[in-house]
């Protein structure tokens, strides 16, 4: 499992180490996620992004209050102003999102536990199809797949 130190080594040298902001597939992915949410919402009260990175997706979640959980201090230090860093979920959220985190190299069991503890609306799970671990989030109400870099990206929406 990737340690916090290894994660910090990714984020420390420069912002946006995976080039999300300049890679067309990630710009597409973000727009896809947000349009799905606009269709499902369009507006949420409290949103939580677990494994928020630098807040690339998080900042535009359609919610009145946006919280982000991020292990890396360097990444969380780059959160946009409208994203509040927290260490554990604070109460219930009507939108819980996590993208690219439920992989074997991350602490997926902890992330799953956090999601199930605080979700009180919809859960959105995004990531690379072949890498996502098969957790049970309840009733799946939507599922999308699209080309993403050299992989298939997915977004699955659940009601817990």
């Amino acid at each position, binding site marked *: 499992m990737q340690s916090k130190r290894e994660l910090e080594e990714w984020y420390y040298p420069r912002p946006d180490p995976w080039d999300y902001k300049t890679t067309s597939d990630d710009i597409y992915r973000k727009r896809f996620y947000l349009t799905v949410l*606009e*269709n499902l919402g*369009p507006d949420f009260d409290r949103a939580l992004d677990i494994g928020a990175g630098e807040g690339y997706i998080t900042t535009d979640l359609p919610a009145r209050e946006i919280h982000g959980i991020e292990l890396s201090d360097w990444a969380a230090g780059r959160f946009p102003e409208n994203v509040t860093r927290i260490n554990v979920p604070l109460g219930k959220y009507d939108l819980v999102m996590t993208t690219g985190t439920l992989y074997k190299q991350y602490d997926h069991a902890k992330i799953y536990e956090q999601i199930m503890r605080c979700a009180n609306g919809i859960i959105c799970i995004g990531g690379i199809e072949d890498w996502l671990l098969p957790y049970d989030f309840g009733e799946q109400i939507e599922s*999308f*797949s699209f080309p993403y870099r050299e992989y298939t990206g997915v977004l699955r929406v659940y009601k817990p």
Partner: protein
Amino acid sequence: MYTNLRLAHNIGNVNHSNYHTREQISACNDPIGFDGIYKNVYDNQDILENKSGVMFVMGNYIGRDNKFDLEHVPQLENYCTLTQVKELCDKYDFEIGWHTWSHRNLTTLSDKEILQEVTAPFRTKYFRYPGGVYDDRVIEIVKSVGYEKAYSVTQGVKDMNMPNAQYKIYSDYVDFN
């Protein structure tokens, strides 16, 4: 299922093929496929009463404007938000369709780019080709995504017995009189 869908874009008094007047839309007795969806369709929604058809949404322009297309159209217009399009579909006999994210000519794109463009962020059975342009490669990808019907305005067939006819349906414009 909408094999005689007519095409319209804007509702307004502008002398251009992207515009129909309220009277022209009202006089159309066939199902109408609106592309956009332009805000002026929402603003003139009362004339959609007793009409049916499809609202073909372009993902990148939801809630934005048509600056990207100004070399082809006469004036700046705004598009509906997704909420407004859904409201139209809820209130009237219209279904939501997909018109790609960016309105690029699909025949010029890679397979991966086509698949991205035709993948809608909501469930729909209906697809409209940007500029009406398609080829066999584009059709195969559109089919693979699960659409039941795909429409053109510049090429295609009206005979539904032709091979792949449901993916190359020719749409006439709503009559201009």
